C-alpha cells in the first residue's frame, strides 16, 4: 500500500530489510525515535469511551472551594465529599484535583508519572470566545452536542466537515509503508470498523480480543485432503472477476481476510505473549490482545501501529453515578494491566495510550443524569508521557462561568487538534506533514514552532 506522499527507497536501520519511508517522516520521526533510544517501534492506542463520558466526575476538584462549587453545579450528580482520590501536586493556580473513587490505579499511574490528564478538551474551530458565542458570530463545530457529529469529529479531527476519514487513517496513508508489506494494516482494531483508523487508502485490520484474534475459514488449507479441497473451492470462487462494485468489494474483503489471517496468526504464534494477567472483561481482554500483538511486532514486521478499542455505554442521561461507579473501575484497572504488560514487553516507552469520547456532559443534572455537553477530560498513558500533571486548563467552576454556554455545558479550552497533534508528532508525523493529518491544526498551533502543543509528550 503506497502513500499519496512522496516516497523514497530507503534501507532502514531499524531491523527491517527494507521499507519505503516518507522522506519527511525521516526528519522528525526517526530523529525523535533515536533521541528516545527506543526500539524504533511506536504505537498509539486509542480508547473511545463511546456515548460521551461524564468526565467532570472522572477528574474532580479536590480543594474545598472548588469542590463546593462543583457540588452546587452538579446537584445530585456530585460525588460524595471525601471520596475523590487525590492526585499528587497542585496546579499553578493552587487548586487540587482528584480522580473518581473507582480509579485507584489511575491515581497511582499518575503518581508514578506513567499517566497524565488533559483537561477540558473538545472540538473547536477557533479558541472559544464567550462574547462571539453570545452574539452568534462564533465559528462552531458542525452538529455540536450531537453524538453522530461529535463522535465523528473526535475521530476525524475535522470539526467543520463531515468526512469519513480519521486522523489515524490519514497517518496510516503516510506511514503504512514503514511496515513490512504483508497485507496487514498498521491500524489494528479491536472494535471493528471505525472512523479514526479509516484513511483514503488504508483502513483497519479488525481482530477479536479472544483467541488468536483472527479466525480462518473452517479447515481452509489445514494440511488435510479436505483442507486442500476447501482451499480450492474458496479460492476458485473468489478468483472470479466481479463487475458489480459492491460484489467486488465484498469479494476483496473475504479474500484479504483469509490471506491476512494466515499471516497474522502465524506471527502471533511465533511470538511469546506477555504473562501479565488481564481481567475477564472485554476492555481488559482487548488491551491484553493489543499487548500480545505488540509483542509480535517483529514477526508482523510492524514499525508503526495504531490500535483502537471502543468501550460503549457512556451516554448516561440517567444513573450516571451508579453506572460510572461500575464502569470507570474497569477502565482504571485495564490501564494498569496494560501498563504492566507493556512494561514486561519492554515497550512501555514506545506505546502511548489515550482516551477520546463524544463530548463531556452538562455540569447540571436532569434529575438522574447529565445531558450532552462539550469539553471533557482525558487520560494519556505511556513511558513517553510526562506524567503526573494535568495539561490544558481545568475550568474554574462557578455560577455563570464565561465558559458555560447553557445548562452547565462548559466550552473547551483545548482543541482536539492540539491534543491529537501532540500524539501524531510523537508517532512520527513531521511538522511539515501535520496539516495532512490535522487540516485545522494551524487555527491553534504552529507546527514549525518546535515545541509540542501541550507538552505531555
Amino acid at each position, binding site marked *: 500500500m503506497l502513500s499519496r506522499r512522496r516516497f523514497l527507497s530507503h534501507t532502514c536501520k531499524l531491523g527491517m530489510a527494507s521499507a519505503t519511508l516518507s522522506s519527511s517522516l525521516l526528519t522528525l520521526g526517526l530523529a525523535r525515535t533515536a533521541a528516545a533510544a527506543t526500539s524504533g517501534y511506536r504505537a498509539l492506542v486509542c480508547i473511545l469511551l463511546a456515548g460521551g463520558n461524564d468526565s467532570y466526575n472522572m477528574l474532580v476538584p479536590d480543594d474545598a472551594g472548588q469542590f463546593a462549587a462543583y457540588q452546587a453545579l452538579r446537584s445530585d450528580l456530585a460525588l460524595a465529599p471525601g471520596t475523590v482520590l487525590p492526585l499528587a501536586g497542585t496546579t499553578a493556580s493552587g487548586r487540587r484535583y482528584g480522580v473518581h473513587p473507582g480509579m485507584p490505579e489511575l491515581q497511582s499511574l499518575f503518581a508514578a508519572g506513567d499517566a497524565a490528564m488533559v483537561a477540558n478538551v473538545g472540538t473547536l474551530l477557533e479558541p472559544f470566545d464567550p462574547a462571539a458565542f453570545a452574539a452568534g458570530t462564533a465559528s462552531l463545530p458542525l452538529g455540536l452536542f450531537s453524538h453522530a457529529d461529535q463522535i465523528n469529529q473526535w475521530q476525524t479531527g475535522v470539526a467543520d466537515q463531515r468526512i469519513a476519514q480519521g486522523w489515524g487513517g490519514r497517518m496510516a496513508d503516510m506511514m503504512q509503508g514503514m511496515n513490512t508489506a504483508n497485507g496487514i494494516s498498521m491500524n489494528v482494531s479491536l472494535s471493528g470498523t471505525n472512523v479514526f483508523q479509516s484513511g483514503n487508502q488504508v483502513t483497519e485490520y479488525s481482530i477479536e480480543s479472544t483467541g488468536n484474534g483472527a479466525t480462518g475459514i473452517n479447515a481452509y488449507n489445514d494440511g*488435510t485432503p479436505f483442507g486442500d479441497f476447501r482451499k480450492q473451492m474458496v479460492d476458485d470462487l473468489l478468483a472470479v472477476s*466481479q463487475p*458489480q462494485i459492491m460484489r467486488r468489494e465484498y469479494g476483496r474483503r473475504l479474500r484479504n481476510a483469509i490471506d491476512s489471517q494466515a499471516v497474522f496468526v502465524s506471527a502471533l504464534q511465533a511470538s511469546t505473549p506477555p504473562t501479565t494477567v488481564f481481567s475477564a472483561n472485554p476492555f481488559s481482554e482487548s488491551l491484553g490482545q493489543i499487548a500480545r500483538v505488540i509483542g509480535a511486532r517483529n514477526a508482523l514486521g510492524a514499525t508503526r501501529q495504531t490500535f483502537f478499542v471502543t468501550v460503549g455505554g457512556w451516554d448516561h442521561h440517567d444513573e450516571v453515578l451508579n453506572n460510572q461507579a461500575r464502569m470507570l473501575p474497569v477502565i482504571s484497572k485495564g490501564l494498569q494491566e496494560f501498563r504492566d504488560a507493556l512494561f514486561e514487553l519492554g515497550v512501555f516507552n514506545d506505546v502511548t495510550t489515550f482516551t477520546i469520547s463524544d463530548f463531556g456532559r452538562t455540569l447540571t443534572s436532569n434529575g438522574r443524569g447529565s445531558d450532552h455537553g462539550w469539553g471533557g477530560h482525558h487520560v494519556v498513558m505511556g513511558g513517553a508521557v510526562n506524567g503526573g500533571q494535568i495539561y490544558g486548563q481545568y475550568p474554574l467552576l462557578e455560577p455563570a462561568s464565561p465558559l458555560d454556554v447553557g445548562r452547565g455545558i462548559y466550552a473547551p479550552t483545548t482543541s482536539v487538534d492540539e491534543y491529537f497533534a501532540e500524539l501524531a508528532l510523537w508517532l512520527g508525523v513531521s511538522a511539515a506533514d501535520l496539516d495532512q493529518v490535522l487540516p485545522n491544526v494551524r487555527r491553534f498551533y504552529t507546527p514549525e514552532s518546535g515545541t509540542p502543543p501541550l507538552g505531555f509528550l
Partner: protein
Amino acid sequence: MITVHWLGTRCRRGVMVLSVMLFLSGCGGGGGGGTAPATPTRAQLVDASTLAARATFGLAYDDIVALAAGDSNDWLDRQFSLPVGDHVSVVDGLVARRNAGEFAPFETDIELLVTFRRLAWWHRTVTSDDVLRQRIAFALSEIFVVSDNVDALIIDPYALSDFYDMLLGNAFGNFRDLLLDVTLHPAMGVYLSHVNNRKTDPVRNTFPDENYAREVMQLFSIGLFELNSDGTRQLDGQGRPVPTYTNNEIREFAKIFTGLSYGGAGQFFGNPVPYFRAPMVMFDAFHETGTKQLLNGTVIPAGQTGMQDIHAAIDNLFNHPNVGPFIGKQLIQRLVTSNPSAAYVRRVANAFNGAGTGVRGDMQAVIRAVLLDPEALAPPDTTADFGKLREPVVRYASLLRQFGAGSADGFIANTGYVLQALSRQHPLSSPSVFNFFLPAHQPAGELAAAGLVAPEFEITTSNTVIGMANLVDFALLGGFVTDATAPFLPVSLDVSDYHALAADVPALVDRMDIVLTCGTLSAATRQAIENTISQVSDLDIRVKLAIYLFHISPDYTVRL
C-alpha cells in the same frame, strides 16, 4: 470424485466442538422439486425471488413458485391482511414452561429467561406466515433502535418482545401511530431515558432530560437537515446544509417528554420497577407546564395536559416535510438498494405524503412504493450500482427459512448469540441508538471514490466476513444450525427436496440461482461452483455444499 468422507467442521471459538456429521436424506415435507401446477417462466420466478429477497426473510422454492404465479400487488394485499405473528405469546409459552419447572435442571449457569425474547424472534421469523410484516418490523427496528445492551431491557423478556410486537402491529398502519407508540413504549423510555423524566426543578438545579427529544428528531422522524422531497439536502446561500433544529428546540422538546412513568398496576411517577406490557402513562404533576416552541413556528400553549403536549409534538414532527424522504429513503436502503436515485426517493416520499391514498403516513402505501418502484423492478444490471449487501441476520434467517429448518417439536430454538459473536449483528442488540451501521457509511476505497454508500459494509470486517462464512458452514455441513441447547431440541435443515435435482449439477445450480441469487449468478461463479460440487458424489452433501458456496459468494451476498 470425492466420496462421502466429509470431515466435520470444528468451531474454533470455543463455543462448541462439532462432531463429524453426515446427513442421511430424510423424507422431506413440502415436495419442493417443482410439482407446481402451472409452471411459471424463469423470468417470473426470478422476479418473484427478487421481491421475496427484499420483502421477506427468504422464501423456499415452492413459495417463490406460488408468488410467481400471481400478481405482486395481490401478494402484498394478502400479506397486509394476515394476522400478526406476535412474539409475546411465544414468550408467554416459554415463561409458562419455566414456571412449571421444566427448565429448572438447565438453569444452573445460565438464566434462560434472558434468551426468551431471542428465541421468540427466531421462531417467529423462521416459521410465521406473515413474512412481509416480520421483515418490515425488522427494518423498523433498525430505525427505532432499542437494544438489549441495557440491563433493564435484557432481564425482562417482555421488554423487547413487546416492543417488537408494537413494531409488528404498526408495520402496516400509519406512521403517526407508530411514532406515538414508539415514544410511549417503556422499552424506549428506558433506552432513551425519558421514563421518569421530570420537569425543571429550580431548587435542585435540575432540568428535563434531553435524550429522547434529540433522537426522536435526529433519528426517528426528520433527521439533521432540511430535505427536498427527493431526499437531497436543501442548501443555504453558501451551499451549506440547513439544520432542522438547534439545541434550543431540543430543550423545548425535552419539556414535552416529562411526566411519563410506567403503566400497569400500582403506578406512580418515579416508579423504579419497569413494566413493559403497557404504554407509559402521564403524571401531570411532573410534566413541565409552560409554553413550548416546536418546529416551524408552532407554539404549544401553557397549561395543556402532558398527553396533549405529546400529541401536539408528535403531530409537529409527523407533519414535517422531511419525514417522507427521511424515513422512506431508509426503508429503501433496508429493503432494496443502498443508493436509490433521487427520483425513487421522491416517489416513495410522495406515497408517504398521501399521493394516491390521500392519507399521510400510510405505511402500506409506503411499502408498496418501496417494493414496486419501477427502479426496483428494472432488470438487474451487474455493471450498475443498484443493490445492497445482505445483512448477516437476514442471510442467516433466510438460510433457515429457505432450506427446511425444523425440529422434532416444531420449535426453532435459536438464541442468536453465536451469530452475533460472529457477525456483530442481532435483532434489537445494536451497540448504540445508531444501529449496527449508519445509512451514510462509505467504505474507504472504490466505493467512497464512486460516491456510493454501502451501510452493511460497516460490520463487514476481516473477522465477520469469515465468521459468517463459517456460521453457514456449521449449519449446512456441521449440523450446527441453532445455538440453543437442552431443554430445547436441535434444529436441522432438510434439503431432500433438492436430491432428485442434484444428480444434474447444472440443473441444481440453476435452481439455486433462482432461489438464492435471483437469477444474477455470473457465468464464472456458476462455473466455479459446478466444478466444486461435481467432485462430491453424495447428493445431500452436494446440495449443501452448493448452498454454502452460494452463501459466501459475492453473487449472493450482494443482491441486485
